[in-house]
C-alpha cells in the first residue's frame, strides 16, 4: 500500500507506455512470488519430512518396519505399536506418570517462587536489592556443567539419589533467574496506582502481591509454564543422573533414552520407538499451536525491552 502511494506521488500522468511497463512489473512480481513460494514450500517439506516419517513409521507393523526396501507409507496401517506402547508390559505409562509428577510440582513451584521474588524486586525497597539482583543475573551466564557434579554430591548426601526430588525441590528456591527477570519486568510495567491504592487501603505487601499483582501476571505466567513444561517434559539428562538405577522412578524421556541406547534396541521395535516419539511430541505440539503467535513473535524480547 505504502509502496504504490510513493510511486504515484512521483509518477507523471499515466501514458500508454507507462501502463505497459507497469504490467511488466506486475508480471515480474508474480514470477518472483511463485519462485519464492516454491522455494519456501521446498524448505518446509525438507524440515517436516522426518516428523511425517516418524508418524508414518509408528503406524507400521514390526515386520514392515524391519523390512527392505524402507517405505515411507505403511502398506497396511496398524495400531500395533500404540497398543504395545499403552499396554501394561511396556512401562511407558508408569514413566509418563513420573514425568507428570515432576511437571505438576514444577508448574506450581516455579511460577509461585519466581513471582514472589519478582514482586520483591519490582515493588519493594530493601537493603542489598541491587547486589542480590546482580548475583541472580550473574548465574544466567554460569555454565551448568560446573554445577552438576557438586549438586549431585549435595543431593546424594541429602539422600535424594534415586528420587525425583533433585528435579523439583530446588525449584521452590527462586524458580530460575530468567523467570524472575521476566516477571519483574512485567510487574514494573504495571500501573503504580493499583498498588498505591491498595496500600492506602491498608493491604500489606503479601496481600497486594497475591490479590492484585499476581492475577495481572497471568500472561507471563502462561509463558513461564510453557517453558517449564517443555524443559521437564523432554529432560532426559537429570533423570539419567539421578534415577537411572531406580526403575520405578524413570521418567518418560529417560525411558525412551534407555530404549534407544542402553537396552540394545532392535530394528523390529522401531515402530514402538516412533510411537513413543509421536506420543512425546504431541503435548508440546498442541501447546505450540495454541500459543504460536506469542511464541514465534517473541514475547521474551518484548519482556526484556519493557
Amino acid at each position, binding site marked *: 500500500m505504502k509502496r504504490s502511494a510513493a510511486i504515484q506521488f512521483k509518477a507523471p500522468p499515466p501514458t500508454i507506455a507507462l501502463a505497459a511497463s507497469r504490467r511488466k512489473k506486475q508480471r515480474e512480481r508474480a514470477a518472483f512470488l511463485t519462485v519464492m513460494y516454491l522455494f519456501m514450500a521446498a524448505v518446509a517439506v525438507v524440515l*517436516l519430512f522426518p516428523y511425517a516419517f516418524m508418524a508414518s513409521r509408528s503406524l507400521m507393523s514390526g515386520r514392515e518396519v524391519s523390512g527392505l526396501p524402507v517405505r*515411507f507409507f505403511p502398506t497396511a496401517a496398524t495400531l500395533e505399536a500404540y497398543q504395545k506402547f499403552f499396554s501394561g508390559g511396556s512401562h511407558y505409562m508408569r514413566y509418563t506418570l513420573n514425568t507428570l509428577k515432576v511437571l505438576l510440582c514444577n508448574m506450581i513451584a516455579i511460577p509461585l517462587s519466581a513471582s*514472589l521474588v519478582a514482586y520483591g524486586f519490582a515493588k519493594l525497597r530493601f537493603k542489598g536489592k541491587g547486589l542480590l539482583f546482580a548475583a541472580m543475573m550473574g548465574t544466567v551466564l554460569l555454565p551448568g556443567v560446573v554445577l*552438576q557434579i557438586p549438586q549431585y554430591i*549435595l543431593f546424594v548426601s541429602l539422600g535424594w539419589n534415586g528420587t525425583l526430588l533433585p528435579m523439583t525441590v530446588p525449584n521452590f528456591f527462586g524458580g530460575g533467574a530468567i523467570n524472575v527477570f521476566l516477571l519483574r519486568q512485567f510487574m514494573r510495567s504495571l500501573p503504580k496506582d493499583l498498588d498505591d491504592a491498595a496500600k492506602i487501603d491498608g493491604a500489606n505487601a503479601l496481600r497486594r502481591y497475591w490479590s492484585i499483582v499476581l492475577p495481572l501476571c497471568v500472561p507471563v505466567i502462561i509463558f513461564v509454564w510453557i517453558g517449564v513444561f517443555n524443559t521437564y517434559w523432554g529432560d532426559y539428562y537429570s533423570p539419567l543422573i539421578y534415577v537411572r538405577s531406580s526403575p520405578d522412578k524413570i521418567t518418560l524421556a529417560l525411558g525412551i533414552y534407555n530404549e534407544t541406547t542402553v537396552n540394545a534396541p532392535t530394528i523390529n521395535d522401531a515402530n514402538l520407538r516412533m510411537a513413543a516419539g509421536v506420543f512425546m511430541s504431541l503435548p508440546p505440539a498442541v501447546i505450540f499451536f495454541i500459543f504460536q503467535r506469542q511464541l*514465534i513473535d*517473541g514475547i*521474551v524480547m*518484548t519482556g526484556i525491552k519493557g
Partner: protein
Amino acid sequence: MRASTGQTNAKTAGGFFKKSMAGWLFTSPMTLGLLLFTFYPMVMSLVYAFSNFNGVEQFDFVGFRNFTDVFSDRDFYTVLKNTFLHAAISVPLNLVLSYLLALLVNQRIKGIASFRVFYYLPVVIPGIVSGVLWKDIYNPEFGILNQMLQNLGLPPGKFLEASGTAMASLIVLNLWTLGASMALWLSALKNIPEALYESAKIDGITPVKRLFFITVPMSTTMIFYNLITGIIGALQTNSTLVIANSKGRGPDNSLYFYAVKIYHEAFDGTRFNYGYASALAWILFLIIALLTVTVFKTNKWVYYGEDG
C-alpha cells in the same frame, strides 16, 4: 517540622530492618536458592577439583594434579578437538542460515505465517525424540536416507556410524532446529524502524543494499546475543549421548564431546572421578569465560541504539 525529622532519625535504627523486612522475605527463596544450590556447589566444585574425591572413601587434596593429568589424557585432546570443530562449524552455519530463514519469512506476503509455523515446528519436538528419530533415519541398513540415496542411484553412507561422516551428519541434523534462532531474529527484525526502509526506498536504494546497510547493522545486538549463547551452548553439547554409539562417543571417538567426557568421568557408573571431572568442568568454564569475554571486548560492531 523539627519534631518529625527527629522522629525519622529515631526510626532509622530500628526502622532499618522493618523497612527492608518485606523485601528480604519476598526475595528470601532466591537468596537461599543461590546460597544452597549455586554458591555452595561452586565453592565445593573448586574444592573437589583439587582433590581425589570419589564420593566415598577417599578425599585428599592433590594440588594441581587433576589439572596436569589432563595433558596426559588422550581423551582430553579428542574431546577438545571435536567440541571446537563442532562449535566452529555449527555456530556460524546456524547463525547465517537461520538469519536467511528469518529474512525469508519476514516478507509481507500472503500465507507467510504458516511458513513461520512450519519452520519452527521441529524446535517444538523434544530433543530426545529428534535423537531417536534421526538415529532411525540415518540407520545404514534400515534407514530411509540410504533407501532414498539408493533410489536416486547414489552410493549408501554409514552416517553416524563411520568416523569420517559422523561429525558432518551431526552438523546437518542440527539444522532442523534453525527455527529457534529464526524466531529470535524475527523479533529483532520487527524492531527495525519502518521509516528507515521508507526513506531508503524513496532514495532508490536497491533491496540488496537495504539488506546490508539497514537490516544487518540494525540486528547486530541480536547477532551478538545469538553468537554468545550459541558458543556457550555448543561447547556444552551433550546431545550425542542419544545419537552416538559407544555410550555417546561415536565411531572411533569421532563424536566424543567435552560434556560427555565429564559425564563419563563422574556419572557413568564405573568411574566416580569427581575430582578429575570437576577439574575438567572448570577448564571448560574458563574456556567459555575467555571466549565470552573476547566476544564482549570486540563488540565495537554492535549497534545498541541511539542512546547507547
